[in-house]
């Protein structure tokens, strides 16, 4: 009996017992993709052990093309051989499959709210930030105007809340998460001020989110990101 007790004590103190013993979880992503990072956060939040495979998008692996024939993109989660694509679909799958530390509330109104803001990010914020990063002149002005309009709504939504999910991070926080890292990088590379003091709640959220234990150590290397996005910026803004 004593030996078993010592064994359990040893295991408890020395091994991370994952919440998915006996199940195979693989994540296909790249070193920098914010969409893949969302999935990393969800898996970490739930204590799920997984194998990470970083793809080279200029030379996609046969496995990736096999697992995501429709879009041929990352991230793809493969659970016991079953592939799931599209990051928000993956996040809901993770929440449906592993019940600890839920990403979505049990309350249907709250769930609908989180899903609404996740969709808002995908359909409004992301295309606008891309336009800001890649355009100039009148196009840039229009993109900035749209961005300002969009951020007003986000700022309003954050009133009275620490995080989009309330006290704890939720689906919308994971989906908005890219802002907490990439805005700083875009601003450094472009010289533009993209989220300014007109949005104190959003700025606070970006800080609070970055400090969360699951998020803290996950950002891709800063220097590598600057190099990557500087090259991309120069591609769209060739020196005259």
């Amino acid at each position: 009996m004593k030996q078993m007790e010592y064994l359990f004590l040893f295991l408890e103190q020395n091994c991370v017992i994952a919440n998915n013993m006996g199940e195979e979880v693989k994540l296909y992503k790249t070193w920098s993709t914010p969409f893949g990072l969302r999935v990393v956060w969800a898996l970490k939040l739930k204590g799920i052990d997984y194998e990470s495979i970083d793809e080279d998008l200029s030379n996609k692996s046969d496995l990736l093309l096999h697992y995501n024939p429709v879009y041929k993109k990352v991230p793809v989660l493969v659970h016991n051989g079953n592939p799931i694509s599209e990051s928000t679909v993956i996040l809901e799958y993770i929440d449906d499959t592993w019940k600890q530390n839920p990403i979505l509330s049990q309350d249907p109104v709250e769930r609908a709210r989180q899903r609404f803001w996740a969709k808002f990010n995908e359909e409004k914020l992301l295309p606008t930030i891309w336009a800001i990063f890649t355009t100039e002149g009148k196009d840039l002005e229009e993109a900035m105007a749209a961005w300002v309009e969009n951020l007003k709504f986000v700022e309003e939504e954050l009133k009275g809340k620490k995080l989009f999910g309330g006290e704890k991070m939720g689906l919308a926080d994971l989906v908005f998460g890219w802002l907490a890292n990439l805005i700083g990088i875009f601003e450094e590379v472009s010289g533009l001020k993209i989220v300014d003091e007109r949005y104190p709640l959003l700025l606070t959220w970006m800080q609070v989110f970055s400090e969360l234990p699951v998020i803290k150590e996950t950002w891709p290397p800063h220097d590598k990101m600057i190099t990557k996005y500087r090259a991309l910026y120069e591609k769209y803004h060739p020196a005259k």
Partner: protein
Amino acid sequence: MEGEVVLLDFWPSMFGMRTRIALAEKQIKYEYREEDLRNKSALLLQMNPVHKKIPVLIHNGKPICESLIQVQYIDEVWNDRAPLLPPNPYQRATARFWADFVDKKIYDLGGKLWRTKGEEQEAAKKELIECLKLLEGQLGDNPYFGGKDFGFLDVALVPFYCWFYTYEKFGRFSIEAECPKLIAWAKRCMQKESVAKSLADQEKIYDFVLHLKKALGIE
């Protein structure tokens, strides 16, 4: 207990039809309010200030926006009857993935068929057929996308069936010739009361688009 359910909608909207079908499947009594999109009601602007779009589902005074979010909401609140999403997480993910695919592709491509001409229209037609074929492939030998039972992806896609006539007339092609299984599926869905009562008449849709083109100055 249902509580008060109101749907702000516009009769030709395939997105509003999704919500109508879900409400009908669950046999929920609700008040239907037709919006004039050129003169949006104060209620619509108040309930959907971000997008100012229909459909908006209002349940006990609380707004739920975005059609697929509404369908999931209805499925979760009235979870004691006619389930739309299956309990298995992988099947749920598959249904969500393809419903998202419908959202990303079908509306815009279909729109190009009646808004554009020449090369742009041809390219849209080609891509729309490819997308419909991909969706058709998901049916397999099942009567519905949900398997034996009508489900979430069926709800997401079937409203486009009343728009197919318009797409075909402008695009000068037959969707049935390209995707016979898909049309057989749509006709099977139309035998359900919830679908038949929620979809608009295809000729009325075509007339509506003709008028819309004139109003927008599109030839």
